[in-house]
């Protein structure tokens, strides 16, 4: 019996979500009275995982796994889970982890619960709380199979340090060939992504046109934030679809979400509900977003945003 966690890395460094899922796995292992084993793929130095409660790391180094492949990665994790007799496999909610999770769950004959926001309220029956109806509700779900796959929502659990040491073992799973080959990856390396961002700055139709996005980008730049937009903005082609946040777009679970010129349609609010602190800037005090926000400024974005940028620059300079 053990808890297995897949700790994602990129360019030989763990992602922040890897430490969050490790922290979560440690909490589950404590509940079940067992230990945590991590699977790391081409992650380089894995000792940092000990800080978040991992006891043992199965470290895979294999150039065939340089590019993400859902079947190959799922197979590697499946083999690790079987070797370790894992009853619970914990993964993140990244695009890659969500891609491999259903394949892994079939391979392990394991029930899978995604978007889980808390540690199990009970381990027998194994009961977790997950978001449903695109963050408009929570669903308590039991996983009734012997092996369970748990996908943890980003930012739902946070990082918990526990002074442990992770031993590392080389692990060499057989990698199956895959019928899906990555030909090219198009990824802006200098931009913070919505998925990884602590802070997201989002613009709506209130900004009047794509030519006015300079101040949104500048504000995001000052805050080290990702930029996002509402559905009408992406439908109008002012911003790429990949920035569309909401029920049919991306969910946002950042620490801080700043909505500028977004009225707050129910579908948009659903998508950002998991963000911790919400700020709205809008000329219309009746905009529904004010009911969903923690802080609000009734005012013209074209005056408020430049002022906010200047004040933040001063604040950052002072607190640097």
């Amino acid at each position, binding site marked *: 019996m053990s808890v297995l966690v897949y700790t994602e890395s990129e360019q030989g460094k763990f992602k922040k979500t890897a430490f969050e899922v490790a922290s979560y796995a440690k909490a589950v292992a404590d509940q079940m009275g067992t230990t945590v084993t991590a699977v790391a793929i081409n992650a380089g130095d894995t000792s940092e995982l000990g800080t978040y409660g991992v006891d043992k790391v199965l470290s895979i180094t294999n150039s065939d796994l340089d590019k993400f492949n859902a079947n190959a990665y799922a197979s590697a994790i499946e083999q690790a889970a079987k070797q370790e007799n894992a009853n619970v496999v914990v993964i993140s909610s990244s695009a*890659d982890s*969500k*891609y491999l999770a259903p394949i892994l769950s079939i391979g392990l004959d394991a029930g899978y619960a995604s978007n889980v926001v808390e540690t199990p309220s009970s381990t027998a029956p194994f009961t977790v709380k997950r978001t449903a*109806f695109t963050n408009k509700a929570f669903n308590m779900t039991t996983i009734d199979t012997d092996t369970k796959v748990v996908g943890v929502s980003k930012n739902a659990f946070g990082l918990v340090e526990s002074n442990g040491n992770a031993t590392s073992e080389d692990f060499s799973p057989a990698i199956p060939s895959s*019928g899906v080959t990555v030909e090219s990856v198009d990824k802006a390396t200098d931009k913070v992504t919505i998925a990884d961002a602590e802070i997201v700055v989002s613009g709506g139709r209130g900004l009047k046109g794509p030519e006015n996005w300079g101040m949104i980008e500048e504000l995001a730049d000052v805050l080290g934030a990702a930029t996002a937009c509402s559905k009408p903005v992406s439908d109008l082609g002012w911003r790429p679809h990949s920035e569309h946040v909401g029920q049919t777009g991306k969910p946002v679970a950042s620490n801080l979400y700043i909505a500028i010129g977004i009225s707050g349609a129910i*579908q948009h609010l659903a998508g950002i509900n998991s963000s911790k*602190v919400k700020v*709205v800037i809008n000329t219309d005090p009746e905009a529904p977003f004010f*009911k969903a926000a923690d802080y609000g400024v009734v005012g013209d974005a074209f005056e408020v945003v430049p002022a906010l940028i200047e004040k933040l620059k001063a604040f950052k300079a002072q607190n640097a």
Partner: protein
Amino acid sequence: MNILVCISHVPDTTSKINFTENDTKFDTNGVQFVINPNDEFGLTRAMWFKEKQGAKVTVVNVGGAETEPTLRKALAIGADAAIRVNTEAKDGFQVAKELANVVKDGGYDLVIAGRESIDYNGGMVPGMLAALTNSNFVTNCISLEVDGTNATAMREIDGGKETVSTSLPLVIGGQKGLVEESDLRIPNMRGIMMARQKPLSVVEPLNASAETASVKFEKPAPKGAVTLVDADNIDELINLLHNEAKAI
């Protein structure tokens, strides 16, 4: 090409979400059901294949008779045939097992499902279906071209996109980008009339068992009132975000 599009019957995106029977069931009272938006992008891409490259498009849903109007809508949009697997959808695994049976019977080359439904947001049916039918699989798919048995797809990844090459049989987890919002079709009267004549076959389930079970629903705790900051006092906003919310 023989295309199967999986259709989930979900509450409209504007629906108020309420629960009944001691918070164990979704309250359908006054709720309008629609084709799951992610599935609708896939259906529309399937129609494109039918019109430009020649394909037969079948739509399928796992659910009770109450889901038939949603399948009829897909027929009115242009699908050729519909299948309803006559059983209540319990979890992603059970639905994937039932769909795998339909795929095996129908000999489909390409299966398009939405990357997730907007009600349970499980995001597991397409991947499980691919694994159960030994098909190639691309999810979060934002473009798809098929040439003979070869396919090229784009997948949205965190912070960008990647282009992959693959081949049929293929399962797609689709989303916006497969087609644009403006490409979505509203059924016209002729489509609605024709849909009535198109075959909608009801097949009996395998009675696959579920692996997970929904126990109860909860609504998020009501939020406190917004703290308003004067537009002339941005220092105060920064102060609140730093000292009170600890967000910057």
